[in-house]
């Protein structure tokens, strides 16, 4: 999409931090030497190798410290998706038990991997969530059995920001001798994590969500956990994840995490304040709502919904005014399916399409929030003028055959 001539040239307000974050300047500084100066392969025997190796191992220590794990329990990957894949596939294929329990609101990296495991013959259960977006512990307790090998519940949801009671889930799993994995991609660097206190056996993280570089992630694996590698090769990461280390990425990730943990409390307080202002302002728009429980929610997340209008249109109109946000609308997804998270919290289809997500970050200021509040009502109003929908309009005839094989042609094979 070419840039709009109508976008105000000075406006670049980024409110999509859950999608990705900019590289912190301090992180870039830490990474630079490892590109052209200390560029050695960390496995080489000579001094270029050892200096790269030292950097990788220091990073491992720093990351372990941040989550109260041992350095030997940190494995470097290319990101959250890879970590999730290794965790689920690696654990299920290494053991005898065939049961996997996860939730209906997981990120696709967990959801589709779990689906794939089901096709391969594993017994997979997807736990529902309440309309609040929180997993019910009773349901989990009932679901765990002798055949359960692994429970995977994300720490916080990327779309609605609700935070799961993973401390309690970890306790439950430990009591039942079942492994517990958490996709913590949205919480590492944002919420306090202690793998010991929380009884976490496996944890996925991704650097570009906490002001680190894209292409770097890690998987924490408790010592003693039986797990198979997905990839085969040169034996790196104790054989779990071969491949020449992305030294600069790893160094950057560790630096980014250190900074994030240090600044966490203050940053969260700021984001909460601004986010509260944003939500309160947005909810003044008629026929609007918040998706998921207000708390416990990530400090940065404002997941809203607006009746009678569609998300992609809202996002692009906001983009034209220099504001970056996102939506769970079907129209904006690759599969043209509405957000599975919004469906899981019980939102009717037509309301899923009206979703708009703002996720704040370090750069967000009160001015930014006020600008959004200035611009958004007009956008919603404009789209409502274009829309046939309003209170009292009956669309029941257009809700037929929903979810039954959503098969009609949407174009070529969108993989």
């Amino acid at each position, binding site marked *: *999409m*070419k840039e*709009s001539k*109508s976008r105000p040239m000075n406006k670049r307000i980024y409110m999509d931090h859950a999608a990705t974050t900019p590289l912190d300047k301090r992180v870039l500084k830490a990474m630079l030497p490892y590109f052209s100066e200390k560029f050695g392969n960390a496995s080489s025997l000579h001094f270029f190798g050892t200096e790269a190796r030292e950097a990788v191992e220091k990073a491992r220590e720093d990351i372990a410290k941040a989550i109260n794990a041992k350095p030997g329990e940190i494995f470097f990957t290319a990101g959250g998706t890879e970590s999730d894949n290794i965790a689920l596939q690696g654990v299920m294929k290494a053991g005898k038990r065939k049961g996997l329990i996860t939730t209906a609101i997981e990120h696709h990296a967990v959801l589709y991997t779990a689906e794939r495991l089901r096709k391969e013959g594993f017994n997979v259960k997807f736990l529902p969530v309440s309309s609040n977006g929180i997993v019910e512990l009773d349901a989990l307790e009932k679901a765990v059995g002798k055949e359960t090998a692994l429970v995977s519940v994300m720490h916080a949801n990327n779309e609605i920001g609700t935070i799961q009671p993973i401390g309690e889930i970890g306790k439950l799993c430990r009591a039942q001798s079942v492994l517990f994995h958490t996709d913590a991609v949205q919480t590492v660097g944002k919420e306090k994590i202690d793998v010991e206190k929380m009884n976490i056996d496996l944890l996925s993280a991704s650097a570009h969500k906490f002001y680190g570089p894209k292409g770097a992630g890690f998987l924490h694996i408790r010592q003693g956990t039986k797990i198979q590698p997905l990839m085969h090769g040169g034996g790196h990461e104790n054989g779990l994840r071969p491949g020449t280390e992305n030294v600069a990425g790893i160094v950057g990730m560790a630096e980014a995490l250190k900074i994030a943990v240090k600044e966490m409390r203050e940053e969260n307080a700021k984001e909460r304040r601004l986010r509260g202002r944003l939500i309160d302002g947005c909810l003044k728009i008629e026929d609007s709502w918040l998706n998921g429980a207000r708390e416990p929610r990530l400090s940065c997340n404002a997941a809203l919904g607006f009746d*009678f*209008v*569609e*998300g*992609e*249109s809202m996002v*692009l109109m906001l983009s*034209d005014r220099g504001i970056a946000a996102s939506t769970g*609308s*079907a*129209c*904006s997804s*690759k599969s*043209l399916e*509405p957000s599975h998270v919004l469906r899981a919290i019980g939102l*009717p*289809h*037509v309301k*899923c*399409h009206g979703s708009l997500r703002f996720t704040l970050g370090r750069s967000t200021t009160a001015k930014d929030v006020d600008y959004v509040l200035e611009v958004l009502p007009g956008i919603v109003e404009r789209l409502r*003028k*274009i*829309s*046939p*929908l309003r209170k009292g309009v009956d*669309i029941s*005839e*257009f*809700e037929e055959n*929903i*979810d039954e094989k*959503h098969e*009609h*042609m*949407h*174009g*070529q094979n*969108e993989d």
Partner: protein
Amino acid sequence: MYSNKVMEEFRHPHNIGEMKNPDGVGKVGNAQCGDLMWVYIKVAKNKKGEEIIKDIKVKTFGCVAAIATSSKLTEMAKGMALEEALKINKEKIAKELGGLPPIKMHCSVLSMDGLRKAIEDYRNKKGKAD
């Protein structure tokens, strides 16, 4: 994702609105897909005695492509004889818009369905009146 033409059509859509006393109404869409289009037409006879679309309005709930294609359709169909209007297809609409991503072609199909339904509605009403 979208061409300049699609974005411009989206930013300044044409013929948006409802119609008082339309001659035909076509309501199409699917809440699961998130596209709903309501097409209103007024039919009159031109000098040749052909039935033409004198006026056409649309209201759309949907994405950029949905709004752009429905708007473009109304521009193309306005003033056309009914039979000619029925010949507009998704390729023609996409062409006028400088192309659409394959995943969004169904929006132009939907807008055509809306127009077809509106014309059908007009003919049914007329049939009953005659």
